[in-house]
């Protein structure tokens, strides 16, 4: 099929390119403005000095960003490990084991995705406080396990041939060994995809850390960043430096694992 250059084609390319640029510009603006000493009252491009890392230094040393980095990294690593292990196990159980009533339970899991976060959050707050888990990493890590990850893993688990599992069993491979050395390597791409989603989810999580982390030494990076803006006079340069610091990690992850991001989202929408 030959492609002709029609006016419609030109308009389409122009429109798509323009929209793509509009999507990226605010983030470039963010990085540029992080190199200014701009406050609410004086905000201008002419102040940009790309050699001036004062805002970054100030955020890291004076506004708890160094500690925030540490907390966020602990929470993210913990979440990724937990979600990967628990979701893979659950998906394997749901897809390959003959447990009566498992499909009903799976439907219940999926139904929770319709429930607005606030419905869960209010009582989770009461519950987590009651058991003395506020201001702990566990409070941020444990609730990351959810229906989406299990659903995603199950989609991939379908492709693992039953014959392979049965053959391993006949060869005398124990249950744990079969799961760890045969099943997990086969669903490795799915585990990477799930890790990518859990990473950004845990890293960017805001409302739950906001209400459950009351001690500033337990703030995640996002919380530190959120505390930068004052009510009246805001140091925009500093806020943009903070925003840039929170953005770097997910952005680098996206650059390297673009395929996994896209695959995970597409799978939810297409194969479902």
């Amino acid at each position, binding site marked *: 099929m030959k492609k002709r250059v029609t006016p419609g084609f030109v308009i389409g*390319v122009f429109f*798509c390119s323009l*929209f*793509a640029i*509009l*999507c990226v510009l*605010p*983030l470039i*603006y963010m990085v540029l403005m992080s190199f200014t000493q701009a406050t*609410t*009252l004086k*905000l201008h491009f002419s102040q940009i000095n790309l050699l001036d890392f004062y805002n970054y230094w100030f955020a890291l040393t004076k506004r708890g960003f160094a500690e925030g980095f540490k907390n966020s990294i602990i929470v993210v690593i913990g979440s990724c490990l937990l979600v990967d292990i628990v979701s893979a*196990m*659950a998906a394997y*159980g749901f897809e*390959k*084991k*003959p*447990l009566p009533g498992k499909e009903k339970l799976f439907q219940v*899991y*999926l139904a*929770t*995705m*319709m*429930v*607005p976060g*606030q*419905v*869960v*959050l209010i*009582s*989770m707050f*009461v519950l987590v406080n009651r058991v003395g888990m506020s201001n702990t990493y566990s409070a941020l890590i*444990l609730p990351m*396990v*959810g229906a989406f990850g*299990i*659903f995603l893993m199950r989609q991939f688990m379908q492709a693992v041939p039953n014959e392979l599992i049965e053959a391993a069993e006949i060869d005398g491979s124990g249950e744990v060994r079969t799961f760890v050395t045969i099943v997990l390597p086969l669903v490795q791409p799915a585990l990477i995809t799930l890790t990518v989603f859990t990473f*950004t989810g845990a890293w*960017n999580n*805001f*409302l739950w850390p906001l209400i459950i982390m009351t001690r500033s030494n337990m703030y995640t990076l*996002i919380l530190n960043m*959120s505390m*930068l*803006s004052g009510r009246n006079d805001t140091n925009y340069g500093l*806020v943009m430096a*903070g925003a*840039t610091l*929170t*953005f770097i990690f997910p*952005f680098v992850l*996206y650059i390297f694992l*673009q395929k996994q*991001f896209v695959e995970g*989202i*597409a799978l*939810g*929408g*297409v194969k479902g």
Partner: protein
Amino acid sequence: MTRQKKQAIYGAVYILPSFLLMAFFTFIPIFMTMYFSFTKYNLGQPAAWIGLENYEKLISNSYLHQALLNTVHYVAVTVPLQTILSLVIAAFLSSRLRNRLGDLIRSMLFIPVVASLVASASVWNVIYETNGGILNQLLEAVGIPGFNWLGRKSTALNCVAAVAVWKNVGYFLVIFYAGIMNISTDVNEAALVDGATPLQRFWYITLPILKPITYMVVTLGIIWSFQVFDLVYKMTAGGPGRSTYTVAYLIYSYAFKDRRIGYAAALAVCLLIVILIIHGLQNLVFNDKDDDEPRKSRRLLV
């Protein structure tokens, strides 16, 4: 023990960790919230059963009326805009621009998706800033006077909605693009032989086949938009006046600022009911005639 039984027990063991976590952090809280909604429960005091009083108070709560209107307004702006934009761009890129430029455009559109809502809100706060924000600077450069975008009742909510659209288009584009790539080329080639124009092919082939995916995109969009919190919290905090109060923001301020857990729980339950009703209506709209296509995609969203 039979092999079947043993396997079933293994199944239970595999599922158990997820079940325990989901129970403690999802199932039990949902039921607790339902219970709290019938109680007067302020943090620090014991919960006391008061029946439907919270719900009765909600009906006459003028903040809620405003928040409901705002939320519906917000959904009505974001959902159609982001759905149509992502669909049209996906259709164009997949049919006419399957090259490096197309890939680059898709990659660029996705970048806002990985940014946190808090960082996005802060960036757009600076863009919308009245004195020296880039938007007003650009307008002033072409002779249009600057405007207090987030400080006016008439524009604040739409400005917040624009940020959501900016952030979501890349996400839904990925879903639509994958859906279009899944359409067999035979169908399109047959239509091409019959002399169908690109627009006709889009309208009569792509769109009907994408129906289940559109259903999912709209459902996800509605659920997300109904729960808008981070953006409102960071950009306007409900103001100016009550013009950007949304239901989710109201729940947050009742529960965690005023510490009225019972009252906030009742409001949260109302939000759940509204989302379920919309979901039901949507099923009616998308489930016309005898095709059961939407059902396929509902595995993810019930």
